[in-house]
């Protein structure tokens, strides 16, 4: 039988074929753009370690399996164990025993006053600005014109020392240091660009009509990439307390299975249980940490501010501790996805859960206004989702038309986090998490939000240092060394344990 397709193929052979370089050349897509940006940004932040993360991000990631407590729990557990998976709970138990045996030899926690990440970001910002300036003044080298450079302020390198319990009041506004006396400024600017001086002999009348340019024609819409890095500030003018988290309890009823580091085996797909729900939920391994460290206690009212697709919410429900969980998300479609997941995993969803213990709300997390009413909040904000943007074309934030949205992500994140801090009951705590490696979206946003709530609402909070407890998970995850991060912990993508990236920071509102 003659197929239409065969004729097409026959015809194609008569063409000369792809030979020209511009046909052969790979067309640059959103993933390439993302990779390029990351190479530049993370390459300077993480140095030589970036290439390991890069390879891990570009390769398939690893899952963990969360056993559904509303299905045939024992059967599922034994099935997963037969496949060679290990319960995280027992790994934690082992780590705890090991830690106790290792004695309290290294209890002293010396928080370092200076973070080298600050310097790195500063130099990155400078580099980016120089590059942008060079793009606008391309012939700088040719005509001997020196492009405007960043003024170097003497006092800018302020030692940001936030040791424990340091509480400096907001008096120390950074703007004080930037104002120089006029004479000093004139002295510094003695070297004027001679070519731009107007000779008085030609009359100074023209100068009265002179309007200084504020933007370049044709580039009014242009957004400088370096704007993004400016969200990362280092000056602290709000009370900042960092204290180690006292205890960590692994939930009794939670069963999460993983394979040991280096084992890349896959889990079986979930099956239907006798109760009609699915047996286990597969999720990125690093996503289990934020809800675990939130430490939901029995009888608490919890909010998941950006809930979809629902893995973290489901995990909190699986601890069986919750009294009421409010799942919020912006988009209807994402909320529907979340509803579907809950229906698939919760037994008697319609009768026992929907509307009673599990409440859905659709709104922007910045506009929620039940202030002071939640014990715990999980703030898993929208971010550049580093793994997703490198692998998938659709819904990619590195699309050129979304550049403004992308550069303003930290603003959105800080807005959400600041609002969630207000939603907390005094004494309540939240976990802020992103799946990005960018320090701007991680520490930078925490910093911005804390500053914002202090300035606008007078709310103070303390950061919980989780590094002691993350050590329990070091058999399963590869963590960023605590020196590189100020306010939180981060799971790094690492090929034998290809989880993450996942940054999380626990913040408790002061009572």
């Amino acid at each position: 039988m003659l197929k239409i397709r065969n004729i097409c193929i026959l015809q194609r052979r008569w063409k000369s074929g792809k030979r020209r370089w511009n046909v052969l050349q790979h067309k640059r897509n959103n993933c390439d753009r993302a990779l390029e940006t990351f190479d530049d940004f993370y390459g300077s932040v993480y140095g030589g370690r970036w290439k390991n993360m890069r390879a891990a991000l570009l390769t398939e990631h690893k899952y963990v399996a969360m056993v559904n407590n509303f299905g045939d729990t024992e059967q599922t557990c034994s099935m997963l164990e037969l496949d060679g998976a290990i319960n995280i709970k027992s790994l934690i138990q082992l780590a705890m025993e090991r830690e106790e045996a290792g004695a309290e030899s290294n209890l002293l926690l010396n928080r370092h006053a200076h973070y080298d990440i600050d310097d790195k970001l500063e130099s990155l910002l400078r580099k980016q600005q120089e590059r942008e300036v060079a793009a606008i003044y391309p012939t700088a080298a040719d005509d001997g014109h020196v492009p405007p450079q960043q003024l170097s302020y003497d006092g800018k390198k302020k030692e940001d020392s936030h040791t424990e319990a340091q509480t400096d009041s907001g008096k120390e506004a950074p703007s004080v240091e930037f104002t120089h006396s006029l004479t000093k400024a004139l002295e510094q600017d003695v070297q004027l660009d001679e070519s731009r001086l107007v000779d008085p002999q030609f009359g100074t009348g023209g100068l009265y009509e002179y309007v200084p340019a504020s933007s370049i024609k044709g580039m009014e819409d242009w957004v400088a990439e370096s704007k993004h890095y400016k969200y990362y500030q280092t000056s602290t003018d709000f009370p900042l307390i960092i204290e180690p988290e006292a205890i960590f309890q692994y939930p009794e009823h939670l069963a999460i299975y993983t394979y040991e580091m280096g084992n890349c085996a896959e889990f079986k797909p979930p099956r239907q249980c006798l109760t009609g729900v699915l047996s286990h939920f597969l999720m990125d391994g690093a996503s289990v940490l934020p809800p675990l460290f939130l430490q939901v206690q029995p009888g608490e009212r919890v909010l998941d501010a950006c809930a979809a697709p629902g893995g973290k919410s489901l995990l909190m429900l699986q601890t069986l501790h919750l009294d009421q969980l409010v799942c919020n998300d912006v988009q209807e479609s994402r909320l529907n996805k979340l509803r579907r997941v809950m229906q698939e995993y919760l037994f008697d969803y319609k009768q026992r859960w929907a509307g009673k213990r599990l409440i859905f709300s659709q709104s922007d997390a910045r506009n929620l206004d039940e202030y002071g009413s939640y014990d715990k909040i999980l703030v898993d904000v929208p971010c550049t989702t580093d793994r997703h943007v490198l692998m998938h074309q659709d819904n990619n934030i590195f699309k050129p038309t979304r550049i403004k949205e992308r550069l303003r992500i930290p603003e959105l994140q800080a807005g959400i986090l600041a609002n969630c801090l207000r939603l907390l009951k005094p004494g309540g705590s939240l976990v802020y998490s992103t799946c990005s490696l960018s320090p701007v979206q991680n520490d930078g946003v925490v910093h911005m939000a804390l500053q914002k709530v202090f300035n606008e609402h007078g709310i103070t909070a303390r950061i919980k240092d989780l590094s002691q407890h993350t050590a329990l998970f070091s058999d399963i995850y590869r963590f960023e060394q605590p020196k590189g991060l100020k306010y939180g912990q981060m799971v790094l993508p690492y090929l034998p344990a290809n989880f993450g990236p996942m940054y999380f920071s626990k913040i408790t509102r002061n009572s």
Partner: protein
Amino acid sequence: MWRRVLFNAQNVQQLKNVNLRQLAAKATAPKLLQLEQVHIDEAVKLEPALAIYTPEIWRRAHETFQNHGLETMSFLRIVTGNPNVLKRTPDRIIHTLEIWRACQFGENLLHLLLTKYPELLDVTDAHQLLTLSAYLKSRLSTNKNVWKVLMNSPDLMAQPENLIEEKLTYMFEVMRIEVPEIVKSSALSLSFEELRCRHTFLVRLGLFKPRPLKADPNEPTTNHRLYQITDTSEKSFVTKICHVTLPEYEAFKDLLARELERKSRKTQVEEEFSDEEV
């Protein structure tokens, strides 16, 4: 295929005579013309399997090789490497040498090749060898390059043409590596999967960037040379070239294999679907 062979035969490649003469001059300097009992004893010590042959056989074989321009030293190296050669009649040895000569590497280069890999004297099928060499010449452009490739990866003789083609296409089109670099490495000895895995690993680490299609050919690349990538053991490739740890590469191999398998399964399903639609 026949046309290619004929075409190849007509198109006698003028080898670089200057080079050859230099090599020849070098070779003539310490010449051993006589096969002595000492040589035989030494050879037997190295390769006990040679002990069964009578001096007459030794002499006969030596004479055959010498008549075809191979010195005593080369002869000794060949028989210790491949004792079965002595078993053969002079006619058969000559026949094999003639087959090799038809590849037109030039006498001296051919002798170097045969001395390095005496197993190559086991060739009996002239057609197969000529087909292979003609094919390699069509991809690598000169006989000298074919010789270089065989010097680096003699196991090409045993590989089917489609596998070689797959690897060469990958190196030319995906890695964008030119012929001179390919013939200097033993990349063709590697299996296609391993070659692809090493290359993909380097690409994902950000250590290998294919040359832009319009790049100036004189401009040196920052990539590692092909021989560094392919002619190293797995451990030294990972630690010296990639500067990562071995467990990471082990995990990567597993993950990549799974990823590719999934991709191929997906395209298969898509093809089935599109067939049904038509």
